């Protein structure tokens, strides 16, 4: 079927996006709408001595000026982190208080102190600037080293030494013994650079309190509106769940940054109640840099030991993770269960030990960002493998080959159980597509043009489809990570599919519809995907961690199973045949080879007229399902990057990039390829361009596009995207997920290629022209090229 699973159907949602008719939160215009602007801390760390608001209150258009004392006085709760992690010694993590509006202290530049509600955005901004906050500046811990130094400034009183937790996973003794007995040990210090998420659409909220109904409505740029409602109700006490509707309309990118419930949404809801006005806030780009949760920011020391045949015998990883000034919603899980659990990579490693020290700093909170822990793990593993191969004089592909996991299921030493894959198959495919064998000639040709050419690979693996609820519950998660779906067949046969997944660019309206179209044998256009509204969809856990395919679609399949059972019963009753003899195709329910057939719409009509249904059957044709995954899924792949470097300037051009991914069963190959393209562009961005820099005083240095380098079209080559798929063994359609893969596998591939080109392994991300040029000077390779 041309519209079903495997068909590159054009995206149904693109008509409205391409014609400028998408409806985003900032497009919402409520009657009686006012605007919020926040007064934010200019200091990274300071005591608040007083907040003088009288001048602001007197300004034109100002409706109210509100601060943290009023917020907490009204019983609005502190922001929470939803995943409890304990330290090695069993002690709980040290979570400092985070009020939506700071009261006694500010802890990062951008920390909100007060809010102005005014008739216009301009009036709100002008009044926010007129709020006079008296600060007593405090010493600043602006980065990991500063935060963990002796005598460091305390970001939170209840986190001595700024340590949130000191956690471990794996077998320390076995790993130490293995490394002690290793024939070769490769040791590296690795930094994973801090990134700003930079979704195209900035965060936005429109909150309305209806005092007649005592009911709240929040339009918000959320990846998970139901989780937002749950947290806003259960923890922030804004309103009980049945009195709060959260709508996430079209959302223009998230990359994780829109999972979390931020102070601004809480404040808009509360301010709407206080002022009896709808309250809108949309982040300016500067505010986005200052307040969106950042990603990555790890410092790691890693040691990988090998026997004389090149087989890995042990792997020890010690990581320090920067959490920023407060613990964001999922922050604690990122450097632990989304990171250390992937340190076996695609390899059979008999002993692994990972220690993670999480710390506070005076910077914006850090949380999940496309890949979330898995890019950091992939970078550590694949930089170590490449470096070890060079140190031992082995071919990097062959070193990987001898260490690959080859039999499934495979239980790693760090919790994960890989269900399927053909790691060598993906590597072979990538190397062939990249013409790995022809590289030497290309390098020589580039040298004739005065360019240094290098090649690098990375064999990433990730854990997606987060996650089996009982398993994550046992590891500290505060929620279950199932997904829900409801399939409603209307009397005329059209279908509405309600899903708890949320699309903010992924194309669910197309992909999900393809699954249902194929299942019931009906046209794609007869199916509507409904999502993003807590009044329409009963519950859902939202979209992140590449879970919408493996978990969200699985829930839809489960609901379709139930619908199909009823469809067969109705049709068998009407056609006087066995339900098992029926097939659903071409908009018919029929017995092949006979004239027994009903139109799909006739079955729908029969269900709702209920004139002639089987005995004891309820009318209607609507079924819901909750799907709880039995395991993570494990997309993996091999990426090959080829770069050319200008030795005069140090500028790197990625001239070739090949991806061979194993995503399991693919619903829409065009959308999947787009996901890979976007992911690689972000990964190349991390490798070459992007870094959120704070100076020693905690001031952001790269807080605008003048200094924060986003990847542009010219920074990436035309990608070669290949697939060598093995079916996922643990969900009904065999889907693994594809949303993050590109961002996970590409940074190590690019850095491995650069270090190959210049003959100096000491290059950190982002590999800016200045850094690469300096590394070339240090290694003396520039002369070799000229």
């Amino acid at each position, binding site marked *: 079927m041309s519209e079903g699973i495997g068909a590159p159907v054009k995206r149904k949602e693109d008509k409205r996006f391409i014609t400028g008719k998408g409806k985003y939160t900032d497009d919402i215009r409520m009657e009686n709408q006012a605007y919020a602007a926040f007064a934010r801390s200019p200091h990274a760390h300071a005591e608040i001595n007083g907040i003088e608001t009288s001048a602001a209150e007197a300004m034109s258009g100002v409706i109210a000026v509100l601060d943290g004392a009023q917020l907490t006085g009204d019983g609005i709760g502190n922001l929470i982190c939803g995943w409890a992690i304990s330290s090695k010694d069993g002690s709980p993590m040290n979570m400092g208080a985070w009020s939506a509006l700071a009261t006694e202290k500010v802890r990062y530049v951008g920390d909100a102190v007060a809010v102005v509600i005014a008739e216009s955005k301009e009036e709100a901004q002008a009044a926010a600037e007129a709020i006079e906050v008296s600060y007593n500046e405090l010493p600043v811990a602006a980065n990991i080293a500063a935060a963990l130094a002796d005598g460091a400034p305390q970001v939170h009183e209840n986190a001595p030494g700024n340590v949130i937790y000191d956690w471990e996973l794996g077998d320390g003794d076995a790993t130490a013994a293995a490394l002690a007995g290793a024939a070769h040990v490769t040791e590296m210090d690795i930094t994973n650079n801090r990134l700003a998420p930079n979704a195209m659409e900035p965060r936005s909220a429109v909150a309305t309190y209806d005092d007649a109904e005592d009911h709240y409505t929040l339009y918000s740029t959320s990846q998970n509106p139901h989780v937002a409602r749950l947290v806003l109700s259960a923890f922030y006490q804004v309103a009980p769940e049945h009195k709060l509707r959260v709508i996430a309309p079209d959302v223009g990118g998230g990359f994780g940054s829109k999972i979390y419930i931020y102070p601004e949404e809480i404040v808009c809801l509360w301010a709407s109640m206080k002022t009896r006005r709808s309250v809108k806030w949309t982040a300016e780009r500067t505010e986005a840099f200052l307040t969106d949760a950042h990603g990555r920011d790890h410092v790691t020391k890693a040691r990988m030991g090998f026997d004389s045949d090149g087989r890995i015998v042990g792997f020890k990883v010690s990581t320090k993770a920067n959490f920023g000034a407060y613990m964001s919603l999922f922050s604690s899980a990122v450097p632990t269960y989304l990171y250390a659990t992937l340190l076996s990579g695609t390899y059979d490693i008999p002993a692994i030990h990972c220690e993670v020290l999480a710390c506070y700093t005076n910077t914006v909170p850090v949380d999940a960002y496309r890949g979330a822990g898995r890019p950091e793990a992939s970078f550590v593993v694949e930089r170590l493998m490449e470096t070890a191969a060079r140190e031992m004089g082995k071919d990097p592909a062959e070193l990987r080959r001898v260490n690959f996991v080859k039999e499934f299921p495979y239980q790693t030493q760090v919790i994960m159980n890989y269900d399927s894959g053909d790691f060598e198959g993906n590597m072979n495919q990538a190397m062939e597509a990249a013409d790995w064998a022809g590289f030497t000639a290309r390098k020589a040709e580039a040298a004739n043009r005065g360019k240094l050419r290098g090649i690098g690979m990375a064999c990433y693996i990730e854990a997606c489809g987060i996650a089996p609820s009982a398993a994550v519950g046992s590891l500290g998660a505060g929620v279950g990570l199932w997904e829900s779906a409801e399939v409603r067949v209307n009397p005329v046969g059209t279908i509405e599919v309600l899903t708890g997944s949320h699309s903010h660019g992924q194309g669910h309206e197309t992909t999900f519809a393809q699954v249902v179209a194929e299942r019931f044998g009906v046209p794609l256009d007869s199916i509507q995907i409904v999502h993003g509204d807590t009044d329409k969809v009963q519950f859902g856990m939202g979209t992140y961690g590449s879970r919408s395919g493996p978990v969200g679609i699985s829930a839809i399949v489960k609901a379709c199973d139930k619908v199909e059972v009823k469809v067969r019963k109705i049709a068998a009753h009407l056609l006087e045949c066995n339900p098992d003899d029926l097939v659903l195709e071409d908009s018919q329910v029929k017995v092949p080879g006979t004239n027994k057939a009903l139109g799909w719409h006739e079955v729908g009509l029969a269900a709702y007229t209920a004139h002639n249904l089987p005995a004891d059957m309820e009318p209607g044709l609507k079924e819901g399902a909750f799907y709880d995954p039995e395991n993570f899924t494990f997309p993996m792949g091999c990426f090959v990057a080829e770069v050319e470097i200008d030795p005069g300037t140090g500028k790197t051009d990625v001239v070739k990039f090949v991806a061979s991914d194993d995503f399991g069963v693919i619903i829409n190959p065009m959308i999947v390829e787009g996901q890979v393209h976007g992911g690689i562009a972000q990964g190349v961005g991390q490798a070459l361009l992007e870094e959120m820099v704070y100076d020693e005083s905690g001031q952001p240095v790269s807080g605008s596009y003048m200094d924060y380098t*986003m990847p542009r079209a010219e920074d990436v080559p035309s990608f070669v995207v290949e697939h060598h798929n093995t079916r996922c063994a643990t969900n009904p359609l065999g889907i693994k997920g594809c949303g993050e893969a590109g961002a996970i596998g590409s940074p190590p591939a690019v850095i491995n290629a650069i270090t190959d080109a210049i003959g100096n392994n000491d290059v950190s991300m982002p590999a800016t022209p200045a850094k690469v040029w300096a590394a070339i000077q240090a290694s003396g390779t520039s002369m070799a090229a000229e």
Partner: protein
Amino acid sequence: MHSLNYHKASNASEAARLLSGTEDGKFLAGGQTLIPAMKTRLAAPSDLVDVSGAADLRGITVSGRDVTIGAATTHAEVAASGELRNVCPSICEMAANIGDPAVRHRGTIGGSIANNDPAADYPAAMLALGATIKTASREMAADDFFVGLFETALEDDELITSIGFTAPEAGAYAKFPNPASRYAMCGVFVARGDGGVRVGVTGAGADGAFRAGEFEAALGGEFSAEALNGISVNAEEMLSDIHGDGVYRANLVSVMARRAVAAAS
């Protein structure tokens, strides 16, 4: 953005008159620096006097090798001028690579020079071409005009009317863009004319655009990239930031200078 009063001038004298009647007014040419600063509330003039439509501030005239460019002439107009390209293609090429198409169709040569952003392209060209910057009341040599970071010899409310120079025999501009902003991280304009060789450098200097005297002397002897071997600017006098330190920028000056000379040769 704060609210303000907007005025549109049809010629230079009207612009001056309009500005004199304002409390804290500013001239607006292409607005490619001023408008973003206003949008982020870093600038809040009471009035804007728009000179982009002032007829006597626009256009390019070429007489023999003498070039005059009106201050409100856009980068796109400079890039596209066939008359100018015939005598001085290097400035057309440079203008064609400023910013992006939107910037080039709004931004003006006068605005760029008056702002004297240390990473703007035009100051390097003005220095290398030995340009004369004209206002209603006086003329200034480029060497005297660019004073420091965002600082020029202009008086408050003094409006550039045109830029004049004699086209060089050969010239070229080589730029290494800042990875983020795409302003020049280092741009070197080399011009060889009757008066010898002049080398203007932008983006790299800690005090803004400058002339590289040693480079000029070496190239005056022999106009070839090889003539620059072993010569460099002082890294201590270069900008240092998250994109590159002074040593790196000093290297860029040498590399871009060699590439500009090669392109001009």
